[in-house]
């Protein structure tokens, strides 16, 4: 099962490598990974998605918690949450395809953010399933390049991941 683990860690050199190193060292997979500073400049927020059964996820969260740089951690998939990912995608758009791609973008509520005579650059946000669905809808043949940000997430309601 896919899990979204989000954590606050010290904004210090080496902190990220400890988290990433833990995964390779213990044979866990990282599907996506995003890191950025937070409103508190001493902290970074790291969100990663991984796949595993309950036992494996429990081990992952325990080992992450054990890292001295990790301040707080939450498995967002344990409660209701909002998950977002940004995708920028270049697709070939010529002839009849031009209108077809545009319609598809509208259906998925994306935006065309750059245009040339033969190429659209499209921006799309949503959960990972939606982004996957979009490029299936557009069709492999038309896709020139895909950039995805990796998943970010936040809990619904009043729950806060803070100090």
């Amino acid at each position, binding site marked *: 099962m896919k899990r979204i683990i989000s954590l606050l860690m010290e904004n210090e050199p*080496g902190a990220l490598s400890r988290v990433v190193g833990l995964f390779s060292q213990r044979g866990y997979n990282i599907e996506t990974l995003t890191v950025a500073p937070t409103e508190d400049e001493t902290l970074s927020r790291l969100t990663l998605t991984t796949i595993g059964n309950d036992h494996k996820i429990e081990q992952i969260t325990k080992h992450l*918690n054990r890292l001295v740089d990790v301040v707080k951690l939450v498995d967002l998939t344990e409660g209701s949450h909002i998950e977002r990912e940004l995708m920028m995608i270049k697709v070939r758009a010529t002839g009849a395809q031009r209108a077809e791609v545009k319609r598809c973008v509208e259906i998925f509520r994306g935006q065309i953010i750059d245009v040339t005579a033969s190429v659209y650059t499209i921006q799309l946000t949503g959960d990972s399933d939606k982004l996957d669905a979009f490029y299936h809808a557009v069709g492999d043949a038309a896709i020139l390049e895909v950039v995805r940000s990796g998943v970010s997430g936040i809990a619904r309601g009043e729950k806060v991941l803070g100090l």
Partner: protein
Amino acid sequence: MEKLSGGDILIKALADEGVDLIFGYPGGAALHIYDAIFRQKDVKHILVRHEQAATHAADGYARSTGRTGVVLVTSGPGATNAITGIATAYMDSIPMVVISGQVVSDKIGEDAFQETDMVGVSRPIVKHSFLVKDQRDIAETVKKAFYIASTGRPGPVVIDVPKDITNPVDKFDYYYPEKIKLRSYTPATKGHTGQIKKAVQQMLTARRPMIYAGGGVVQGNASAQLTKIAKMLNFPVTNTLMGLGAYPGTDAQFLGMLGMHGTVEANTAMHHADVILAVGARFDDRVTNTPNKFCPSAKIIHIDVDPASISKTVPADIPIVGPVDSVLDEMLELINATNERPDEKAIENWWKEINEWRNRYGILSTPRYDTTGEMLMPQEVIRTLFEVTKGDAFVCSDVGQHQMFSAQYYQFDKPRRWVNSGGLGTMGFGLPSAMGVQMAHRDAAVACVTGEGSIQMCIQELSTCLQYHLPVKIICVNNQALGMVKQWQDMQYDSRYSESLYEDSLPDFVKLMEAFGHVGMRVTKRDELKSKMEECFAMKDKCVFMDIYVDPKEHVYPMQVAPNGSMRDMWLSKTERT
């Protein structure tokens, strides 16, 4: 406030932390620090002959005293040579602080001379690491390092210090913090009371109980509490390889070590137990054999300070995260407060069963080795060592058959007397760790039990023993081969001895010892073993090497059947099985 250079701050901080000894080896990037050492008297430095030995010596010091071992090495090769010792300490949760010199800050990343990314290289085998970037951070970093290394589940911490940070010219205010708080590091200080109550309840209803205690009891200084609980409830106790000495080895309630080379009575009792109290143990694969066949009918209570150790390989029914001493204290209080006791009749029957196994298979109750043949047996060497030292020596073991024989045949009545590389299994650990133990206990009998294979991995340290007058007694169980490798080759590879034999290339250890200024003895006969060993230990101020020739064909038994065996499936000899 006094103003000090970075190098002086570092050493002063160590002194203020209470460090009396550091083990190390100088080199370019560490020279400012070494100069600071020269100009003071509080911290004594022991010059080893190889950085690996510095880490093992600090490790032995830490294991035998409970204090944090300290290592100082230079950058590059100095740092990488220390890696094996850091990994050894990491696997056995030993508190250690390793200070490594680093190239000057503005050369980092330029492949400078003797540059290695020490923080990166050591990352998977440290509890934490620091790269110091400012002289003003040194004292606090030292404080943090010792705090992290010695609290919670202990482990090694690396402090990498670029050379410019320790330069003698720039001076800064020195202040050593009394206390430190880390928002991201808060080890458990107490177990969950509800869980402890549940555990005690479970223990009081046990009919076939077992206490399975590991290195955490030794590290957590909880032997007294553990012994009390076992005595009050009349529970049988087994120790892991790391836990030997946590419960008195000569006590009747002690069943010996469990696991791969554990006793039949300990492993069989584990297999049939209905309640297991696991304390400071981590259900290592050398203990459990096949995890899903592990103790099929047992409710498992697991106390550990490290939550990640709980339910890692074997799920715990009642997990308790907390320091073992305080959790066991609480358990004792609860047991004292109630009149309830486990069913006496059931426990009595359980002991009857266990004693039958013990009488039939026990390694100390029935002779498991032949003492009528021409050659000495490795087991009798260890038994003789036990007798000669009256069971009261510090025994620092290397890795291999002799290590298992020591664990089986030397009965440790006190914690911190048995020093061995259990998790990583580091050959070469024995001699340098014995030096660290001897430095901490100058008048104690310190034995390094080794083999002719292991000893050659750190034999250069004989020179260190001379420099610091370390009267370590080296008991070399010489079977003229890499015994444990050869045993596996016998058992699994039709005795094809691929690269496990020396073919008459062994040095004359007696002459070698003389060359190093020590005493060497060779023993080949049964009737001279004890008298020579007594002679050896009588030389209180001499480092002595006993080169004891033993039967090269002997295997370590019992041995669990693998793969797919349960705890009780064991080889008893080359031909018999349980």
